[in-house]
Each structure stands twice: as structure tokens, then as C-alpha cells.
């Protein structure tokens, strides 16, 4: 055995010794290179966000430029009214002023950006109007309906899951509800279009089958898993000592849930709702399929509505690269982006800090 070891040692271990000297830093290319690549790639996420900013805004920007150069804007407008209404192609160059004199004068009065806040969304016409007011109102209406449905249901369900359910039931409820997050929105939209629209119409007896209410409820379905999961996390994150102290004082589970756990989790629940709003606000496919898509100003929840994101989804495919309508759609996109970005930042920084401060102050 010893001999064996000696033999093996002479054969097996003669090289390693000379390699090991540690008094000089060795340059290892693969390590250096891997680190550089990894760091560079990690920056990509930041780069993408910045690029989205730049490219979505860049395509929206010409709207504001046209204001300053009225002549150009007029000319463009004339072209577009042709393109949009008749051929669907901006490559048709029209500089024939005689024919379009009246049109041109009208167009000068109606610079595209000045119609942005008007009450009519009529992008495809001889005299296109890009009034986003009905779209804003529609989005707001649908978001409100969706939120009024999704937020209470998800928060209550989360309370049940984290406070009342037995551990074994909880293990079932959580993944089942999270399944909803895996449903593609086009499937939810299809369900809303085929089933919910009919069922609701039979119940409420309203006129238009597809409307803000159906769309809102359907979009609420998409937001439920987000609000539910984040609320459940927020409730579970409340230190056990809080719960135990309350139960120890003779409070019931219900009292503990509503007077101890829920107040402590409020910032987290707010963050959940805020992210839920972001999800509803940006939802496109369900809005396209279930809201009816008529851009009108109405406070009636059972009227058809057109949301900002659905407008992009419905019209971008038909629009001409680089024309005013195209730019306005990108402007809508920029607004959506800014809004969701702000919501995310709010949830991320404001509410997170609130959560941290809350637990620290109670320590």
C-alpha cells in the first residue's frame, strides 16, 4: 500500500507543485473576458428601457415639430387626408394646391396637435381629428370598472388564503389562482366576447353587447392574479409576532386580520393595486375584443368604449409609416409608457420605502 502510494505519487503529482506560486497576480483571460461580457450584457436591460423611451418618443415627436413649421405641416396634412381616406399610402405625393385649396385652409386651422385635446377621435377622414379625450375617458372608465371588480375580490381572496385557510387548502388555492396569470389575454378576451358579453346582456339587458362593463370585468380578470399574489405576499410578510401577540390577547382571527395584519400590510397592498392598475391600463387584446371599440364620450358603463392601448392595436396595422396618424399612435404609446413607468416607480420606491419604515419603526 505504501509502495503503491509512493509509485502513484511520483507519477501523479509532479506537475502541480511548480504551477503554484501566488506571489504574482496572474492574468486569466477567460475570467477577465467572462466578467466583461457578463457586465456588458447585464447593462442591456437598462439599454432596452432607454431605447424604448427613445424610439417610442422619437416616432411621436414629429407632431410637436409640425406646430412650429406650419407650412410643412399643412402640406403633410393634405397628403395624409388623401392617403388615409382613399389609398392608404402616403407615397402618393400631392402638391396640387388648386384642387385642395379649401381643404388646405381648413387644415391650417386644424393643426394635428391642436386637435389632440378635442372631443372627437376621427383619424381616418378628409379632416382627421385626433381628439384623445374620448380615449382617455374610455380608458379611465374601463380601468375603474376593472379595478372595482378585481381589487376587492383579489384582496379578500388573499386575506382568506393567508389568514383563514388551513395550510393544506392554502397549498391548493395559491397555485390554482396563479394559473389565471398563465391564461393568455387573447383567451380571456375570447371568453369575454363569447360568453360574458351574452350572459351580462341577458342579466342587465343593455343595448350594445360589447361595452365598457364587459371589457372592464374581463380586464379585471387579467389583473386578479397580480393583485392577489402581491397582496398575499404583503400579508405573509407581516411579522408573525404581530399575529401571535394579537391572538394571544384573545382577538379572533378576523379581528387579527383586520385590525393588525391588514393595517401593517397596507403599503404592500397599495403597491399590488398600483401594479394591477398598470396591467389593466396597458391591456390591449381584451380591450380590443370586448369593449366594442367606439370612441365616444359617455359616462354610461354599458356604452361601448375605446381605450388608448386598443386604439394603437386596432389602428397601427392600417396606418402609414410616418404620417400624422402614425405619430399620434406613438404619442399614445408614449403616454402609456410614461404612465406605467411612473406607476412602477411609485410601487417600487414609495411603497417599498413605506414598508421598510413601517416595520423598522415597530421593531
Amino acid at each position, binding site marked *: 500500500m505504501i509502495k503503491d502510494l509512493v509509485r502513484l505519487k511520483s507519477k501523479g503529482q509532479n506537475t502541480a507543485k511548480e504551477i503554484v506560486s501566488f506571489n504574482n497576480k496572474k492574468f*486569466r483571460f477567460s*475570467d477577465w473576458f*467572462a*466578467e466583461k*461580457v*457578463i457586465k456588458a450584457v*447585464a*447593462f442591456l*436591460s437598462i439599454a432596452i428601457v432607454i431605447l*424604448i423611451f427613445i*424610439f*417610442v418618443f*422619437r*416616432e411621436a415627436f414629429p407632431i410637436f415639430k409640425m406646430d412650429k413649421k406650419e407650412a410643412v405641416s399643412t402640406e403633410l396634412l393634405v397628403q395624409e387626408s388623401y392617403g388615409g381616406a382613399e389609398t392608404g399610402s402616403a407615397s402618393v405625393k400631392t402638391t396640387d394646391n388648386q384642387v385642395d385649396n379649401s381643404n388646405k385652409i381648413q387644415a391650417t386651422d386644424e393643426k394635428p396637435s391642436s386637435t389632440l385635446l378635442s372631443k372627437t377621435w376621427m383619424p381616418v377622414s378628409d379632416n382627421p381629428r385626433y381628439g384623445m379625450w374620448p380615449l382617455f375617458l374610455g380608458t379611465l372608465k374601463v380601468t375603474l370598472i376593472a379595478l372595482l371588480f378585481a381589487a376587492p*375580490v*383579489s384582496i379578500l*381572496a388573499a*386575506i*382568506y*388564503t393567508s*389568514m*383563514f385557510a388551513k395550510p393544506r387548502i392554502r397549498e391548493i*388555492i395559491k397555485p390554482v*389562482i396563479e*394559473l*389565471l396569470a*398563465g*391564461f*393568455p*389575454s*387573447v*383567451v*380571456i378576451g*375570447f*371568453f369575454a366576447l*363569447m*360568453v360574458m358579453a351574452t350572459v351580462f346582456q341577458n342579466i342587465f339587458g343593455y343595448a350594445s353587447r360589447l361595452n365598457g362593463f364587459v371589457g372592464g370585468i374581463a380586464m379585471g*380578470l387579467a389583473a*386578479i392574479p397580480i393583485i392577489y399574489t402581491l397582496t398575499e405576499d404583503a400579508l405573509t410578510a407581516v411579522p408573525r409576532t404581530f399575529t401571535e401577540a394579537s391572538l394571544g390577547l384573545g382577538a*379572533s*382571527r*378576523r*379581528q387579527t386580520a383586520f385590525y393588525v395584519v391588514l393595517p401593517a400590510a397596507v403599503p404592500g397592498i397599495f403597491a399590488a393595486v398600483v*401594479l394591477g392598475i398598470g*396591467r389593466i*391600463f396597458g391591456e*390591449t*387584446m381584451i380591450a*380590443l375584443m370586448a369593449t366594442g371599440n367606439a370612441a365616444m364620450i359617455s359616462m354610461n358603463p354599458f356604452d361601448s368604449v375605446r381605450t388608448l392601448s386598443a386604439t*394603437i*392595436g386596432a389602428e*397601427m396595422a392600417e396606418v402609414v*409609416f410616418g404620417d400624422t396618424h402614425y405619430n399620434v*399612435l406613438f404619442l399614445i*404609446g408614449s403616454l*402609456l*409608457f410614461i404612465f406605467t*413607468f411612473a406607476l*412602477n416607480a411609485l410601487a*417600487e420606491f414609495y411603497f417599498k420605502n413605506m414598508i421598510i419604515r413601517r416595520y423598522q419603526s415597530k421593531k
Partner: protein
Amino acid sequence: MNRNVKDTIVEGITGVSVLLIIFIIVSILAVTIVGGWPNLNWTFLSEFPKDGMTKGGIFPAIVGTAMMTIIMAVAAVPFGVITAIYLAEYASEKSVIAKTIRFAVKTLAVVPSIIFGLFGLGFFIGFIGKNMDGLLNGGELKWGQPNILWASFTMALLTLPVVIVSVEEAIRTIPREMREASLALGATKWQTIRRVVLPGSVSGILTGTILAVSRGAGEVAPILFTGAAYFLSDLPRSLSDQFMSLGYHIYIMSTQSSNVDATLPIQFATTLVLLLLTFSLNAVAVTLRYRIRKRAK
């Protein structure tokens, strides 16, 4: 009111909320299965649409969805894995850079999918594609229009956070002792990552990939104007071809077709196929993730 009665009522209301959500989930599943099952057969899966899309199958939409998600995964997974490695292994938690990257990833996760569509149109098609045409094809239109490559890339951006989050979670479950063992043997940081951390994260990488594919297969808004086509009589042959997709097919058939009622069986069956696809992928991913989390405990 009596305290016990109040307790019961409140618990009841919260319980009903859970039941309501579960009822909705079950309804969606039931309606789709009942409506789609009778029409779901081999012919439906293997044929092209016929007679102005009122008959026939959805073969090109299945193939298109598969191709798009594969290209998407090829683009998103390496970037996602590397970013996750950076966040878990290289970045210190307090560094501004790491925090910024984390915030960017979260932003990507909440940006509405339609915005990715706009970005794909403005960046990939309008900027990269147009410039590629200018440089490579002498201005002839080839890349500067919607196609499967740009649609897949757009979808890759959307699913990047999914991959990053899954992989980072898996990397963090690898015990510190494993890294220390490797480093104490004189392995460099990169050798440790490559030989210990990555092999230990395979199931996490797989989970992330599956979740991303499932998400990508179901999303429609990003591909609306970056590459999805209404109808094609051929499968895509090159990256510059357009493609049909299951989700887009459902949308088109249920809202844009001239005779929606006549194609109802097709719509339901297509929805069932898409739901089965995303559902089974999710089920696999959830199982894998459950195992990873169990290992962490």
C-alpha cells in the same frame, strides 16, 4: 352583532371571493374545452385553413407560434441567464448599478405588451431593418417590414424579465458552501460559475425558458404589427417572412372575420389548442419551480 357571527360572515365573504375566482377559472376552462373539443382532431392540427379560412385547420399557426417562440427563446435565454448571473454573482446588493438594472428589469416586466409592439415597429423594423436594407440590399425592401425575426425579437424583450427572475431565483438556491468549496480548491470565480453554479441552475434555466415560451406563445399585442399575418398559404421559409400565430388567429377569427358565427368551432378549437399549450407548459414550469424551492429549504 355577536362576535362569532361577525367572524363567520367575514370569513365567509373572503372565502366566497376565492370561490368566485376559482369559478371563473373553471368556467374559462370548461367553456373552451366544451366548445373546442368536438373540432379538435388530427386534421384540424395538420391542415392549412381552407375556403377563405372558414374550413380546414390551423397547422401554419401552430408552426408559426412554435418557430416564433423558438427564435424568441434563443434570443432571450442567453441574455436572461447572463443578466441573472450578474445580479446573483457579480453585483453587490447595494451598488447603484445593480439597483438600476433591477429597476430596469422590473420596468420591462410591467411595460404594456403593446408598447413592445410599438418599439419593435419603431426600432427593429423602422430603424434596424430599414438601415439593413439600405446597407445590404441597396434600399430594396426586405428587412424593413414585419417578419418573424422582428416579431420574435420583440417578444424576446417582453419575456426577458421572466427568464431573469427564474434563473436568479435558482442561482440563489445554490448553497454558499458549494461556491466556497470550489473557490477553496483554487477555482476562479468564472470556473466556479461555469462548473458549479450553472450546472446547479439547469432546472431554473429550464423553468425560465418554459415560462418565457408559454408567455410568448400566448401574447398577441407585441406581434400585431411586427410580423403576424392574417393568412399565409405557405409556412415561413426565411427569417424575413411573416408568420401565422395561434393567438393572432383567435383574435382575427373572432373579431375581423366576415362571418364570425360560421367559424365558431374553429375559434373554440384554436383557443383550446392555445390554452392547452400554455397550460401544459406552465404546469411543467410550476412543478420544476416547486422542486427548486423545496431544495432551497
